[in-house]
């Protein structure tokens, strides 16, 4: 097993073990997501007959806003426990930190998606079949990679900045807008009135391109982010 892989595994075990013991982040994210979906249901769905068209949009608006909570917690335990300096002087390539954070955020977002998408179907598109729900979940998984990658990257920059809590959503949300538009498009291509497999594939391809693009950007410049 290579050294990089062992470092990555150690970081992942640390982050996931902290989360399993405290259950702070994932519980808050799930609760927030359910409340947001209920708000959409009460505020919009009960007053409109065409909510099936909006199911994907509601779900992805909820996931994007919930992601802010998860991304906002990235690096926070290390900063509060003053572990961050130790981590940064450890002989670990900076990119390994980013990959570890990204994987943890993908786990969080996938958990949220597994709750939000069935809720979206129950609330707004009750006629949806299980196979269609599966397709929406698959496109969501690809979208999660892009969101998690951008979130982990920007969280690393905001950790040393003032007004971190205010800054991060302002940086993060505009950058993930293309990803959210495509993910909502993929959901619409499956759940909408005229399902279109070609559209669905196109949106999934875009989500993949988004993740790869930011993966390459992060590969090229992430070392400069933690260059302190």
């Amino acid at each position, binding site marked *: 097993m290579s050294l990089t892989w062992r470092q990555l595994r150690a970081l992942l075990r640390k982050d996931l073990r902290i989360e399993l013991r405290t259950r702070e982040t994932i519980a808050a994210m799930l609760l927030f997501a359910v409340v947001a979906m209920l708000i959409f249901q009460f505020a919009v769905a009960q007053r409109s007959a065409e909510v099936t068209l909006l199911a994907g949009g509601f779900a992805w608006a909820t996931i994007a806003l919930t992601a802010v909570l998860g991304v906002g917690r990235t690096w926070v335990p290390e900063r509060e426990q003053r572990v961050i300096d130790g981590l940064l002087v450890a002989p670990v390539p900076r990119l390994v930190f980013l990959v570890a954070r990204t994987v943890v955020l993908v786990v969080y977002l996938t958990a949220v998606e597994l709750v939000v998408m069935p809720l979206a179907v129950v609330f707004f598109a009750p006629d949806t079949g299980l196979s269609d729900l599966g397709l929406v979940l698959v496109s969501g998984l690809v979208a999660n990679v892009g969101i998690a990658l*951008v979130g982990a*990257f*920007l969280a690393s*920059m*905001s950790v*040393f*900045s*003032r*007004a*971190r809590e205010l*800054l991060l959503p*302002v*940086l993060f*949300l*505009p*950058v993930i*807008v*293309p*990803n959210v*538009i*495509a993910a909502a*498009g993929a959901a619409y291509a499956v759940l909408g009135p005229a399902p279109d497999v070609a*559209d669905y594939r*196109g*949106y999934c391809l*875009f989500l993949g*391109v*988004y993740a790869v*693009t*930011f993966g390459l*950007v992060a590969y*090229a*410049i992430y070392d*400069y*982010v933690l*260059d*302190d």
Partner: protein
Amino acid sequence: MTDPAARRLAILGSVTGALLAAAVLGAFLVAPEDADQGVIQRIFYFHVSIALVSLIAFAVSFVSGILYLRRRDQKYDEITVVSVGLGLMFSGLVVITGSIWAKASWGTWWVWEDPRLVTYLIVILLYAAFFMLRSSAEGERSARYSAIFAVVAFAAVPLSFYSVRVASSFVHPVVIDTAGSKVPGSMMVWFLVSLAGMIGLFFTLLQLELMQRRADRSLRDLKVRLERAAERRLSRAV
């Protein structure tokens, strides 16, 4: 005027002024009127060129951001900041001129189905965060984070364009696409003059702002030196 940079700026400003004046005259008085859209089509000579220049501004900030990360030269940090500011200004003008066209064409100031107008709104939000990030960090970190975000934001620009463009509703007329230009030569000439004028305007404003920043820095250095000299003279007198 002995400063070569000031002389270059004066020449650039004069050429830009002449090009913009020619573009205004050409677009409103010489170019033929579009048979389909009428007089409102003339706004495209400026709307499209402003849009292209805003992208050039963000591309300049992307390149200067990379150069700052590699060389850590304050000059590149200043180019990044000024380019993002000018890019935002041009993007604001794109939205305003686009809205004017939308009002004349569709009777409404804003059309959510128009992918490019919506994209510019996203781009404005994206780059507006740049200044918030810059002010929340200090010293070298502020410049480094600005450079990094300029690179990240520029990577997001084409993705924003594409994501909105793949939306099925597509009402914005495509003037230039992969198959080439759909504009006749008599119109294209004035569009190119307008584009050259706008590019000149961007580089004039960039140069002007950079000169102002350098003058400001020199003045601050001079003030510090004078204060130190005054302190030394005072201590000798005592």
